[in-house]
């Protein structure tokens, strides 16, 4: 039932709802972004977490000590489960951060460290 999964769980299939009895989805422009270096497609302006999920990616980070995989949980920016490294910045709440073209999204290992030259 579960398709072949990459390290982050990417199934390689796009999992979007086509026809819906009530809703009509207004999606942004199709853009390319990178997940752990792998090129993926998403819609500009949708949260990064949603774009990843549509690409079959479920694992967004790993915990510091036990290396437990984590995905998202609340999707409203309140639980810290979906932290990832985005364009070099760790601990980004990907559930409420909009996707931009060319974004480099990486699985976060542990608590993340402050990038050089920024604080």
């Amino acid at each position, binding site marked *: *039932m*579960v398709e072949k*999964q990459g390290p982050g*769980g990417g199934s390689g299939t796009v*999992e*979007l*709802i086509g026809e*819906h*009895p*009530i*809703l009509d*989805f207004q*999606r942004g422009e199709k853009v390319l972004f990178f997940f752990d270096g792998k090129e993926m497609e998403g819609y500009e*302006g*949708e*949260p990064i977490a*949603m774009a990843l*999920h*549509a690409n079959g990616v*479920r*694992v*967004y980070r790993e915990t510091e000590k036990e290396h*437990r*995989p*984590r*995905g*998202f*949980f*609340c*999707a*409203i*920016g*309140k*639980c810290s489960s979906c932290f990832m490294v*985005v364009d070099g*910045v760790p*601990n*980004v*709440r990907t*559930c*409420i*951060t*909009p996707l931009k073209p060319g974004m480099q999204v990486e699985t976060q290992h542990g608590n993340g460290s402050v990038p050089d030259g920024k604080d």
Partner: protein
Amino acid sequence: MKTLSTEILVIGGGAAGLSAAAEAASAGAKVMVIESDLHLGGQLVKQTHKFFGSKDEYAGTRGFKIAEILLNEIESCKDNVEIHENTTVTGFYSEDKTFTAMRGEESFFHIQAQKTIVATGAQERLIPFVNNDLPGVYGAGAVQTLMNVYGVIPGKRVLMVGAGNIGLIVSYQLMQAGVEVAAIVEAAPRIGGYWVHAAKVRRMGVPILLGHSIKRAVGDRTITGAYITGLNEKFEPVGEETFVDCDVICIAVGLSPTTEILSQAGCKMMYVPQLCGLVARRDMSMKTSNPDFFTAGDASGIEEASAAMVEGRIAGLSAASSLGYLTEHGKLDEYWSRLQSLRSGEAGARICQGIECVLVNGWEDGRNG
């Protein structure tokens, strides 16, 4: 660091916050709405079903349409409303009466306001079971965000935990989106939600297993199944475990009010089980023990959008009138009678008990809004 200032700050742009902003702005006050999500509307924008409640609160209208109605109202007084989306209020420092806020994840600024309405809504509860941290264990609100706002399929087969209104409605919405619902497990011996919603999902062939709960989730990196079990009257697991094939476990076991900012502002708080958690004590004008802070909506107790909108109106009205803006005479009484009629049903009795506990008969400082 940049400091923005406003007369009335509304934290949270859901049903309560938008109603508060519309009410205060139409009285003439300058209002700033801060919303952490990418769009205004809160929980409303995720609801595809027609709402219960009363006509005044748009019963019979689908949730996301109610959000559009509120946004149109805000648009009509837009000169008085400043909106910041994708911006989170991260704290309040009472020493210098300043809020810290964060636009996106990297740009910070300060906010100063004369009056603040905290309409931050609620957050999803999680129950303990083995592997409840695995990706694929999602809050019901998150599942709704995925499929109803962004059109992303949450998974192939879902185990729903909780048969309250949220669990039932989200199960139905999943099927609308073409996702299979394996079963709904509910620890209590009866269905918590409205009968019509339960009947709908049952008709579609989804078993609702009362007196059952999830014992452990299964999966290496992500969810590949779950074991469920029956519960006795003490809620202890009994009998054999049954395996459920699923790739998503949706948690719909209730919400807790989001109240950190109220605590930081020194508002007197109280744990009220009927309102689902820690909430601020308030008077009839929704004013807290800190005369500059008001509360409304799920943040003041988990209820429904209909009540959240009326509470928002009360808070907006009171905040504006406390700043000297003229408000229509008798409006407060009208709103309270609407609240009372919304709370007159069976579910309302519990809410009324809770409200009775937190409500104060005016604050001693005599500075009643």
